[in-house]
């Protein structure tokens, strides 16, 4: 329709006249808010503290039995689209549009910010417990632990996913000193009744970024703090099959210190 040739111009004119101005934004307040959410307060209670950063892409929360097979993103950069069973495409799963920078595997030397624990709108809380670090040699270690999903919502929910845990160890300054060279796999299919919880164990091998500089021995790892960043795509579907809510969520969990297994 030719009338829409001017649509872009009309939109721009309207925005020029009515949009708020940047002067209304308080940069200091924004910075403080962002800084608070980066929550460095739990970083490194000691100079030797380490943290594990665990990233899992594309978990999905569903009401059991009401949805077609869920699309489960295998990587942070993959598009995630959930088509309805008849192919109509009315039910689509949005991905967290921030997921690329937020949950991409951390790289050596990168400074990783921690966040505070968050809950999905569906009432799913994520925790990370029983994290242990077992040193294999001067260059690698195995990190094990469990993800804990708790459903504080009123409805039973199902967590499905095929994540690829990305684990990194960071020092007290938040600098990545070890990463996961090969992505593992984590199959999930957890039914969570209202008020229920479930643990999902995971294990990943990490390799020190620079063995000559960053390799740790048993004495250097006296205390471990673990931080997990997990991307969850929440999809709640009604009986009629109409999507009511699809809220992408990136949850960051800070676990309490866990034991360290000497190699």
């Amino acid at each position, binding site marked *: *329709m*030719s*009338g*829409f*040739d*001017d*649509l*872009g111009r*009309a*939109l*721009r*004119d*309207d*925005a*020029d006249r*009515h*949009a*708020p*101005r*940047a*002067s*209304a*934004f308080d*940069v200091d307040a*924004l*910075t403080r*808010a*962002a*800084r*608070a*959410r*980066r929550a460095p307060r739990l970083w490194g209670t000691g100079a030797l503290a380490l943290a594990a950063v665990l990233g899992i892409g594309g978990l999905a929360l569903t009401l059991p039995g009401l949805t077609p097979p869920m699309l489960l993103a295998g990587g942070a950069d993959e*598009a*995630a*689209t959930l088509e309805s069973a008849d192919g109509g*495409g009315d039910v*689509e*799963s*949005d*991905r*967290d*549009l*921030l997921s*690329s*920078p*937020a949950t991409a595997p*951390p790289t050596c030397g*990168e*400074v*990783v*910010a921690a*966040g505070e624990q968050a809950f999905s709108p569906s009432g799913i809380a994520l925790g990370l417990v029983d994290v242990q670090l077992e040193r294999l040699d001067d260059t690698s270690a195995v990190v094990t632990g469990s993800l804990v999903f708790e459903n504080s919502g009123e409805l039973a929910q199902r967590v499905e996913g095929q994540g690829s845990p990305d684990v990194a160890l960071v020092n007290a300054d938040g600098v990545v000193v070890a990463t996961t060279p090969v992505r593992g796999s984590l199959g999930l299919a957890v039914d969570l009744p209202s008020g229920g919880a479930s643990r999902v164990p995971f294990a990943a091998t990490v390799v020190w970024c620079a063995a000559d500089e960053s390799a740790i021995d048993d004495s250097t790892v006296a205390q471990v703090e673990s931080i997990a960043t997990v991307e969850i795509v929440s999809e709640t579907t009604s009986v009629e099959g109409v*999507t*009511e*809510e*699809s*809220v*992408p969520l*990136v949850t960051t969990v800070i676990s309490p210190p866990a034991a360290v297994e000497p190699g």
Partner: protein
Amino acid sequence: MVEAAPVRQQQHWESVLAELVAHRGDALARYAYVLCGDRDDAADLVQSALVATFSRLRNGFDVERAEAYVRRAIASAYVDRGRRASRWRATVHLQAREELEESPSAAIDRRLDLRRQLGTLSPRERACVVLRYYGDLKVDDIATDLGISAGAVKRYLSDGLAKLASALTDPAIAANPRGPHVGLR
């Protein structure tokens, strides 16, 4: 022993945030406004997106890349908010009467009030229309930004434009489809 509090240095992401707001804040606000159509909501969208983005953004990003992520966050937040509100909108007509009565010039108003017609689109339809005609993005880029398939974008664009077109199908527009009828008030 009392230790002096360390002097806190501004981190890289903080300087990027300040520069982004200073130089591209107006553009982000306009972008949010055309998406949501409300001045206050636009400001809220921008600020929420800035906080969300910079609470997770790692160091090493320049202003340009940061802006791209903020724009995606704005679009995502708008679509998500709209979806949450969609259930209310679907039933609100059953619960309340229209407060405004059509004036004799309503037909003319409908032709001219594109903003009002945009308000009838679903969040995804509107987002696709805005990204296409305001952001000048291609279908594939819109799909990436919204995290949906290119086919879905085409469908939302088609549906959205069809709805807008239906508001502009009276004889006056048909006679002068390129005339000054497409405007926002």
